[in-house]
């Protein structure tokens, strides 16, 4: 379900006030987009964030890599069988290095793919929340409540009660 494209942005210089606002706004049923300069577990707890499914990408990628490494080395050795150094044609101890390296390589690349797909990076088109402030990468926390226009008043009240220093309203 996509979030509403209108809403109110609260700028919070403190973490505890931001988490208070998050809790209150969630209780009121608003959907939120929270900006923070650094990952804080307090924000995740307040939002009730679930475990990220990136790990599935990692697991699938890593196993694909193991399989690819085994298949590549085995198949290429059988395709033109040539005894070298008296070793087996399919020499698994030697192939284990290839299997290992491809496990890591594909595991890492698919983790990044997972991050890009799930985190919606790189951003193209309209952002998830229409409002942003450059201080969110410096020191401020931002809480954007996706709200219909008629509920702006409620949101503004909750934000300033919780301790927001600046409440910006999407005027479009």
């Amino acid at each position, binding site marked *: 379900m996509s979030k509403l494209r209108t809403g109110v942005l609260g700028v919070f210089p403190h973490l*505890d006030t931001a988490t208070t606002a998050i809790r209150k706004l969630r209780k009121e049923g608003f959907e939120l987009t929270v900006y923070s300069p650094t990952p804080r577990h307090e*924000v995740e707890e307040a939002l009730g*964030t679930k475990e990220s499914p990136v790990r599935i990408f990692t697991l699938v990628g890593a196993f694909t890599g193991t399989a690819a490494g085994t298949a590549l080395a085995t198949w*290429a050795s059988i395709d033109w069988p040539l005894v070298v150094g008296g070793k087996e044609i399919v*020499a698994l101890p*030697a192939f284990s290095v*290839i299997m290992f390296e491809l496990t890591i390589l594909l595991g890492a690349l698919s983790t990044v793919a997972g*991050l890009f797909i799930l985190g919606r990076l790189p951003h193209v088109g309209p952002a998830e929340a229409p409002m942003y402030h450059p201080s969110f*990468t410096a020191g401020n926390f931002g809480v954007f409540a996706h709200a219909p226009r008629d509920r702006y008043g409620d949101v503004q009240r909750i934000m300033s009660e919780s301790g927001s220093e600046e409440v910006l309203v999407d005027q479009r």
Partner: protein
Amino acid sequence: MATETENTVVRSSFHPDVESYEQVNRDAMRLLTPPGKGYLALLAMSVMLVGLLVTAELHNIIYGLGMIGDNWAVMITTFVFWVGIGHAGTLISAILYLFRAPWRQAIYRFAEAMTVFAVLTAALFPLLHIGRPWFFYWLLPLPSQRHIWPNFRSPLLWDVFAVTTYLTVSSVFFFIGLIPDIAAARDSTTDPMRKKVYGVLSLGWRGTDREWRHFTRAYLFLAALATPLVLSVHSVVSWDFAVSIVPGWHTTIFAPYFVAGAILSGVAMVVTLMVPVHKIFRLGAYFTPVHYDRLAKLLLLTSCIVGYAYGMEYFMAYYSGELYERDVFWDRVTGDYWWAGWSMITFNAFVPQLLWIKKIRQNLNAFFIISVFVNIGMWYERFVIIVPSLSHSYEPWKFWNLHMTWVDASLLLGSFGWFFMWFLLFLRYLPGLSMAEIKEVLPPPMKHHGAEHHAHDEAQMVVETLPTGYKEWEVR
């Protein structure tokens, strides 16, 4: 925590002089301000050395590989040297991340940049030493109409896989870690050109909860994948030697010995780069005595492991009763290359022992000098493994001596130019301090002090606002 009064604040015990999140950004962005003459001079020197590298390589291509000394000795030595340097960066960024070491955050970006550029430098040498670098793709398992595949049982092919995987994964890890910081640079820079470039590189990062949620997990898994990778890469490099039956190479201790040596040389290189950056940019608030102390201990530990490996190699040569093995090891310290052998033992195993003394560990200049010695010693270690072993194997009629040519010397010097060129450009254009991650170890800004159950983190402490250790540390 209960005794907080007016003049005390909560600070991270690792960075007692960092006041706020904003200060981190200000200080990190200071690194990206226009550079002085010294920087430009260094950069020009590096680029000139790269020119030397290109000249030497063109000479190689035109006149053939005979222009370099025997058995690619200097090229392979330098290759192993640079791959080894790379290891400390991944150790600090990935392994210490898994261990949740809070002193990692301030230094890991430098270390990781060093890794990427060191592996980039190392990767030059396998390409150049094949003589016709444009045929490098013959190393890769690509389909051809003759159905010829590379030999998967050969350690040299393992090396191709290990080094390319390492270069790819460490670059990816480096870039992913940079994304939030490039976004911070985008938000605070005033230069319109930079804003545009950072805007593209940051991939539109805004630090939303969705982004952080997946980012932190992805970062964790990348670290978890990079950890075994870093241990494997130098093991595979060591097997290039250990799998052959050359006396002095054919030992089972090689993998752990190489990995410990790699971390030793890498940590030394981190210190060699960190101290000047610290002094020039006055980063005392970030590179605190704690950081140097931990790095010194890491250096000391790996030095002891390397020293043990040296001793064990000699013991095995003696105890095995293998004539050739014994002869090679005896030759290392008494033969034609005695100076290299003793440099390696002295610089790697003995000089770092000075770090047991706290005064030396805490003295930046002394630590810097020790780290330079270790760098030299570690180059000699690879030299000693390669040259005396090859030049003194089995039959006396096969003995030879290395004649280093100007091409060898230029390639070696040029590799330093290549490395420092990238590193200097990195310092100027990308955030060298990880703003987002340093904030992780800082106590978060709180309005209500009473309600801060968060502040009971052990990495935080209450300090008096004014007198800080920072200034004292800075003048030392």
